[in-house]
């Protein structure tokens, strides 16, 4: 390996270049080395590949110019993971054996969307490789203008704050929409992410078109004894920082005005032994995030302030269907759903999909005097 790669092998943090080395597949690091030296990537626009019957789930890569001689192709599979990213070692070993056989011994746990990624399956082996993967019990995830692989936080499996069953919702929705995950037919990608509470450990609010966030509607539960264990500076700080001005801490008395509370989780996070979310639980549905879009970054905003979520999650599916139909009809190519809504007007969108306007959907009513009566 050249010095530029040797440098990346050094140090305390486990080196990915060492991992490339461990695959024994020189083509990979030679290719990468060339990119680093020339300061540009050498994959072209070719390599539109897939498995029979699917039009998504495989990212094809074909190198160009000199690099084509080094690493002619380098396709990968996006693999739908189990909810919560839980695995048994036996199944992971099976995946390892599988990619050793069909690809080049390199994996990713996981991609930024949520997929497991498996590298280096040659074009002619894609179908076969997929068949064997399916036998292990795994399917491909999304790519292109389709419903993407969803994502959820660890939720009820490990976390005391899970207000909805994120794992079950993930699994149910992926099963429901699996056809559309594999067959892109929308204006652009559509990502669903599910967090058990507003801490949003899966970044649904910043990175998903359709975000499901667990919330509660009643009062924060206070364990007064546990509260006494916290130093008064901590209680004071929490009261001061509550963004809703809902907490008063005076003369040793810590009080929450639950009508004011906007459920930001902060007090619960800090005072986790004493405070717990309420029992009347459900979710807020947010719409429209896109990390970097046509108009800049879009964050997700309130579409449904509160909805009870119980299997089989019929209302959620109906809502998603209505949104997809509307977007399919009105969206421009490469326009995420939030942008279509913004372009045509949030009010019009609500009207079209049959949702009542609610003040919870906006920070404030409009300040500009141009509007329609419809």
């Amino acid at each position: 390996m050249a010095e530029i790669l040797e440098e990346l092998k050094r140090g305390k943090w486990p080196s990915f270049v060492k991992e490339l080395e461990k695959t024994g597949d020189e083509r990979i690091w030679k290719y990468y080395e060339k990119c680093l030296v020339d300061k540009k990537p050498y994959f072209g626009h070719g390599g539109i590949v897939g498995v029979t019957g699917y039009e998504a789930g495989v990212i094809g890569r074909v190198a160009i110019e000199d690099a084509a001689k080094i690493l002619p192709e380098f396709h990968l599979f996006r693999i739908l993971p189990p909810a919560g990213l839980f695995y048994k070692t036996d199944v992971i070993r099976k995946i390892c054996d599988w990619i050793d056989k069909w690809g080049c011994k390199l994996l990713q746990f996981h991609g930024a969307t949520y997929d497991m990624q498996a590298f280096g399956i040659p074009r002619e082996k894609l179908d076969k490789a997929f068949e064997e993967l399916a036998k292990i019990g795994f399917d491909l995830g999304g790519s292109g203008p389709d419903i993407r692989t969803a994502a959820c936080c660890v939720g009820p499996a490990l976390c005391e704050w899970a207000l909805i069953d994120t794992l079950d919702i993930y699994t149910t929705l992926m099963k429901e929409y699996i056809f559309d995950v594999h067959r892109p037919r929308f204006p652009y990608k559509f990502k669903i992410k599910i967090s058990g509470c507003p801490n949003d450990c899966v970044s649904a609010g910043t990175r998903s078109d359709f975000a499901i966030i667990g919330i509660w509607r009643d009062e924060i539960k206070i364990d007064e004894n546990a509260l006494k264990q916290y130093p008064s500076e901590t209680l004071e700080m929490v009261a001061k920082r509550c963004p809703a001005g809902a907490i008063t801490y005076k003369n040793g008395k810590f009080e929450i005005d639950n009508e004011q509370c906007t459920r930001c989780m902060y007090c619960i996070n800090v005072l986790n032994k004493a405070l717990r979310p309420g029992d009347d639980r459900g979710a807020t549905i947010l719409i429209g995030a896109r990390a970097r879009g046509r108009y800049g970054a879009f964050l997700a905003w309130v579409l449904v302030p509160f909805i009870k979520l119980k299997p089989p999650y019929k209302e959620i599916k109906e809502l998603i269907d209505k949104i997809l139909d509307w977007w399919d009809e009105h969206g421009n190519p490469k326009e995420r759903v939030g942008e279509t809504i913004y372009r045509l007007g949030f009010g019009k969108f609500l009207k079209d999909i049959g949702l009542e306007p609610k003040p919870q959907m906006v920070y404030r009513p409009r300040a500009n005097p141009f509007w329609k009566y419809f």
Partner: protein
Amino acid sequence: MSMELRDIGPPDYKKFMHPVLLKNYGKWKSHEHVKPGVIKHISETGDVVYTVRAGIPKFISTESVRFLCDLADKYCDGYLRFTTRHNVEFIVTKEENVDKLIKELEDAGYPVGGTGHSLKAIIHCVGYLHCNLAATDSPSIAKALYEALYDYFKRTDLPERIKIAVSGCLNMCGATNASDISIIGVHTKPPRVIDEVVHAQCSPMELVKLCPTYAIKPKRIKKNGKVITSVEIDPEKCMYCGNCYAACPGLPIHDPENDGVSIWVGGKASMTKQGIMESRLLVPFIPNHPPKWEKVVDIVKRIIDIYLKYAKPDERLGEMIERIGWEKFFELIDVPFTYQHIDDFIFAYKEYRKGISFRFTKHVK
């Protein structure tokens, strides 16, 4: 090939979950940060489990994966999971296994940490290693940062967590839109136009529509006696986003001299406190300089030093900056404030400072 193996969807997570987790599913009561990398989860049933979190490279060989499996077999009854930030997590049901596991992980070079108020795993995209759009190489940047910041991953005494993300280009696959510190690859010159390729492989009208700054116009020209349709790019309007190149190989935008990275600060994805915060521009451009990325590392270290010095307890970087004011932060970090810092896109008006509510800094002599 049998079609019934199509569209089977995700595997059932319950099959992959430790029986103790299944038993306590939805019954967790609280948690404790036992030590860096270790969280103790306490259930209403009285059960207790420990998660031990370790950093792994995002590209990982099957050899290393098998090693992780060996450890899970040895200490965790054969169960493990990965986090939404791409760490591995071992769920340990026997307290005495925690330290043994940590020792084996550390000995093998996998740092245990990243819990509580620490530096979290650095999220990054595939970069040069698999992407055709990368304006910079995210994996090597992440590696350089990890080396410089290694200790912070294993400390939990920071004011709050620090989240760093690296994206190879503006597509932001690497969670860079809302991280405390983000490194994002940028181009700084418009794409070149190879008329023949545009003509043969691309749709000018599609290109016109996908350019966010309306910089692309269709054109018809004569080349070698034939009329061909291509596009023209207005260099005054193009903002180098690379959208058009992604759709059309006839508009190459890679440029070793003029590609590089930008650095952003102050983002936060969680909805706590004042809510989500977007990452905001700190350094518009540094030319690519692999493999050590000294300049990027230097700025990031300076950001963290200021954070450690000025942040109050429980304050994320962005929250701290909002409190002291962005003008003050620019003064402290001593990075030039340039025309690029002033938004000039659709929502730019909202960013202008209405009224007189600023703080005096050296910028106002």
